[in-house]
């Protein structure tokens, strides 16, 4: 479930960046934001990104129902390590020492968090809030 969460989040982020690059810089004004919003909702790449991010959201909600937030959150960064390994294995890309150091730090960080107790809080009684 965590792996599916990581894959969906990274695919969604990459597609989002591609979609927003197509749209260009957003002007902060009423008409500028409205124009950017129109362009955003009519861009198919943005919609594909949203689909992946929806998949991420379902996995994320399910995982959070059981595990700590501070346990789940760092796992999201594991996607950077997966992307780097895939780039080396399948695309034969050369990776700089700085990037390798970053990947190693992410892997050690995720392993350190992974060794801690996944859930440290008790179940929360259902409550109503005024939203």
């Amino acid at each position: 479930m965590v792996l599916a969460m990581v894959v969906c989040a990274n695919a969604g982020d990459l597609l989002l960046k591609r979609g927003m690059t197509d749209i260009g810089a957003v002007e902060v004004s009423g008409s500028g934001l409205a124009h950017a919003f129109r362009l955003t909702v009519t861009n198919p790449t943005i919609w594909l990104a949203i689909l992946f991010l929806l998949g991420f959201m379902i996995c994320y909600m399910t995982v959070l129902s059981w595990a700590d937030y501070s346990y789940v959150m760092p796992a999201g960064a594991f996607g950077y390590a997966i992307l780097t390994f895939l780039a080396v294995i399948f695309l034969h890309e050369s990776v700089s020492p700085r990037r390798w150091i970053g990947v190693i730090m992410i892997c050690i960080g995720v392993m350190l968090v992974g060794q801690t107790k996944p859930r440290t809080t008790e179940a929360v009684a259902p409550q109503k809030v005024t939203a």
Partner: protein
Amino acid sequence: MTATFLLLALFLCSTTGGEIAMTYGMKSTGEPERLRPKQVLQFLGRAVCNGWFWVGIPLMAFSFYALLVLLSWQPISFVIPASALSNVVGTLGAKYILKEEVNTARWAGVVLVCIGVALVSLDSIPLR
């Protein structure tokens, strides 16, 4: 640049606030009995009826749109390392608001992940 840092601060606050509300909502909803489509769908049905879910969604939506604007203003090599700070802000929120037990190992892991993400992302900036 001031607008960028202001929006970044709003992004970090809304991300953390939204995810903490979401975590609280999911914990009070209770986990699905089994990880089968039917049980997960039932869980999602219960989750969307939880008030905390509807506190988290607008904050996360704001955070999402703030990220879109940041990505359109600045290169991804700046936005992603800066947004990695949400790991630290989020862990502080988890410790002090959700009362999670964040021990030294978990803190060390979070800080390593944060620096690691920054290093990986900075790799795309050409050295002068």
